[in-house]
């Protein structure tokens, strides 16, 4: 019996051969179509791949001519990759892991014109980064604010006297109100008729006879009634005086408030048009601002593109097991120095040309589902060739104590910054920096960014393009600024970083500006002050005039009150005094008469009392004698009655005794 079934062996070989042939002839096409289709879906616009080669040794792919269209600008490619070589670990594919041993991406170019406009994917994605960058807007606002520096005083004087105008309007209103109050109060004062009436009543009182107390009392009653009427008028006068003084005081305060208006305007003017450290600092922000934030916009755009892939990398969940009724079993894992993740990229190299210089981005040990024991991801961005690298960024993405700790070290020399033109203080300024040196370190712990990047500009040229208010002294000041340093403090999160730009340019520029521009600034302030004072004086004039009128009116009213007091009150006081004297005289005479009558009555009273006393004594003695006589008679009667009673009792007793004796005898 033959042991082998040759037909089976041949069939196996043929089947395997067919698989290989299909792979050889068709797999490349299938991969190309799959890449273009999936890429278009992800990118939102056409993705083209010129050529795909599937290689067996090493197992992998060789892709050429990859063009990724820009969905926001279909005439251009967002990315063009000349060649992509991927080397894959074959056996790990059977374990469900994708492990790329080596990835080389050569000659990456951005924003390249396409041969023909690209097609959009059926469902276009929302362009990321199209929204206005708030930071850029803020920078533009700052530039606009700086452009306001030191305009003409004539142009400004109307704008910068707002507080004074408000204070003048307020004072005018208060003074008008005070004038109305004073005018109304004058009507309440006693007039000439009242004065005449008072005079007549006083004359009548003077003519009244004062020869008796009754007449005096009648005159006093009339004077009292007159005084009561005058008191009522005085109360009205006091009320008028109080309201008048209140109105004048309010008007005075309103006038004083006008004085604080110019002070506020002056302070506001200095705040709006400062020449200090802050304004110089803003200049540093402007120098870096636009280019810096443009780069940030680009980075955010590509971060948004890569976000879905990063999310997949971070999630390393086990694929769901196929539905089966059989027992699944258990996979036992052992120690491994280099365990393969679901996705792993051992080594990759991306090279491209930018700024007319070669760039290389190296990424190593990139793995999904990182743990504390996983090797950190190493990233290196190099600008320039070999040891002559002008910029080197070394990054390490690690997981320490379950915290994602990403660190980036930056070192660069001779970094070109493009010449740029900025508008500062209404002046177009051209800045041409020499190549700068960059250094710094950024750290992100669980997405929270901290770090500082320093850019040293060793040599700079500033020139003023056209004229402006500050052109002359700005030009002079900037000539003295040569080397300066810009520090960018990074904070916030990876998704939303924030930057604080600090620079010693502010010190240098402000020092230079302080010397050069101080005189100009003082002159401007001086002329501004003169213009402001003139404007304030003009604005105050109506209020001052109104207040003067109010003061005159008050004086007139006070004069009227004084006259009233002199003519009426003095007469009344004199009359009252005269009446009081007369009354006192009469009262004194009455008092003396009363005392004499009192003395006579007292003498008569004493005599009567003595007579009554003597009679009382006599009557008392007579009564005593009568009482003694009566007592003696009573006592005699008593004795007689007692003797009679005793005799009667003895008789009775004898009679009884006789009766008894008789009875006994019987």
């Amino acid at each position, binding site marked *: 019996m*033959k*042991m082998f079934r040759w037909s*089976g062996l041949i069939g196996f070989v043929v089947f395997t051969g067919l698989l290989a042939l299909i792979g050889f002839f068709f797999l490349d096409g299938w991969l190309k179509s799959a890449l273009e289709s999936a890429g278009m879906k992800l990118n939102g616009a056409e993705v083209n791949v010129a050529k795909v080669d599937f290689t067996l040794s090493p197992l992998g792919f060789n892709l050429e001519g990859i063009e990724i269209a820009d969905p926001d600008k279909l005439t251009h490619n967002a990315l063009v990759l000349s060649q992509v070589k991927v080397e894959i670990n074959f056996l790990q594919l059977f374990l469900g892991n994708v492990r790329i041993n080596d990835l080389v991406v050569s000659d990456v170019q951005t924003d390249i014109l396409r041969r023909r406009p690209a097609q959009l994917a059926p469902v276009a994605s929302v362009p990321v980064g199209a929204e206005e960058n708030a930071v850029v807007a803020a920078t533009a606002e700052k530039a606009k604010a700086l452009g306001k520096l030191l305009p003409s005083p004539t142009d400004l004087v109307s704008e910068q006297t707002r507080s004074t105008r408000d204070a003048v309007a307020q004072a005018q209103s208060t003074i008008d109100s005070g004038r109305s109050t004073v005018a109304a109060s004058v009507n309440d004062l006693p007039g000439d008729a009242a004065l005449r009436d008072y005079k007549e009543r006083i004359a009548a009182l003077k003519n009244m006879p004062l020869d008796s107390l009754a007449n005096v009392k009648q005159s006093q009653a009339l004077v009292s009634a007159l005084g009561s009427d005058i008191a009522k008028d005085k109360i009205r006068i006091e009320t008028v005086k109080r309201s008048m003084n209140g109105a004048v005081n309010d008007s005075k305060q309103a006038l004083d408030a006008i004085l604080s208006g110019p002070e506020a305007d002056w302070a506001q003017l200095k705040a709006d048009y400062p020449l200090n450290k802050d304004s110089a600092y803003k200049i540093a922000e402007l120098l870096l601002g636009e280019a810096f934030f443009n780069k940030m916009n680009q980075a955010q755009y590509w971060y948004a593109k890569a976000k879905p892939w990063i999310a997949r990398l971070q999630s390393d969940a086990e694929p769901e097991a196929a539905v089966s009724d*059989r*027992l699944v*079993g258990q*996979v*036992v894992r*052992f120690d*491994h120095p280099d365990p393969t993740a679901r996705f792993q990229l051992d080594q990759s190299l991306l090279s491209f040309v930018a700024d007319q210089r070669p760039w290389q981005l190296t990424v190593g040990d990139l793995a999904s589902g990182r743990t504390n024991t996983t090797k950190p991801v190493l990233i290196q961005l190099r600008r320039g060739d070999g040891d002559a690298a002008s910029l080197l960024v070394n990054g390490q993405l690690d997981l320490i104590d379950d915290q994602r700790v990403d660190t980036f070290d930056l070192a660069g020399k001779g970094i070109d910054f493009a010449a740029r033109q900025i508008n500062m203080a209404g002046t177009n300024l051209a800045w041409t920096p020499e190549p700068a040196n960059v250094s710094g370190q950024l750290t992100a712990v669980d997405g929270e960014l901290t770090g500082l990047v320093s850019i040293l500009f060793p040599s700079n040229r500033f020139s003023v393009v056209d004229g402006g208010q500050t052109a002359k002294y700005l030009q002079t000041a900037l000539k003295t600024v040569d080397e300066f340093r810009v520090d960018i403090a990074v904070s916030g999160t990876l998704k939303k970083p924030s930057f604080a730009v600090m620079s010693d340019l502010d010190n240098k520029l402000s020092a230079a500006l302080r010397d050069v521009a101080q005189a100009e600034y003082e002159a401007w302030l001086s002329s501004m002050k003169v213009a402001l004072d003139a404007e304030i004086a003009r604005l105050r004039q109506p209020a001052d005039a109104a207040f003067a009128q109010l003061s005159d009116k008050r004086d007139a009213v006070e004069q009227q009150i004084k006259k009233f007091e002199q003519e009426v009150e003095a007469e009344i006081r004199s009359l009252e005094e005269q009446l009081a004297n007369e009354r006192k005289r009469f009262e004194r005479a009455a008092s003396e008469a009363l005392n004499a009558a009192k003395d006579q009555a007292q003498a008569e009273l004493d005599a009567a009392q003595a007579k009554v006393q003597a009679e009382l004594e006599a009557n008392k003695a007579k009564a005593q004698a009568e009482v003694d006589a009566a007592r003696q008679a009573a006592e005699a009667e008593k004795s007689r009655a007692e003797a009679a009673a005793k005799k009667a009792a003895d008789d009775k007793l004898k009679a009884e005794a006789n009766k008894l004796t008789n009875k006994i005898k019987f």
Partner: protein
Amino acid sequence: MITMVLKLLKALNSEIGPWQIAFAGALALVIGLTPLWSVHNLVILLLAFVLRVHLATFFMFWALFTGLAYLLDPWFHQIGLYWLTQASLNETWTTMYQQDFWQVMHFNHSKTLGSLIVTVLAFLPTALLFRLGIIRYRASMMPWLNKLKVMQVLKGSRFYQLYERVDG
């Protein structure tokens, strides 16, 4: 399935060598009892096709042993887990774990390891038992079965004759 049963019956009743049927059954034992999507089953399939074993018997017993595996899986899992967690073998397993080839073989999967060990150990005894059974069957059972009226009716049926004609 009926076709395969008929083919098995025909093979049993024919002059086909007992080893051919026995090894077909033994190979089916391995592929049937171990998890299907294991790399070693590719080798079993290749052997089944390249070696001159009876394929109908192989496929029929494959189905039969797959059904049986549902009952034996917990036992295979226990065996595999016992071996994988033996401290004395830990070094060996760890060494094997470093190589992608062995990871692809799923050696560290409890059920795969347990079922493979059992089936490999049972391979030769199963083949010998199959062979012995076939020889005994042909010597004693086959003549008696052929005399049974049911078998004669079955062989005389149009379906069987049609099958004989198509199968050659």
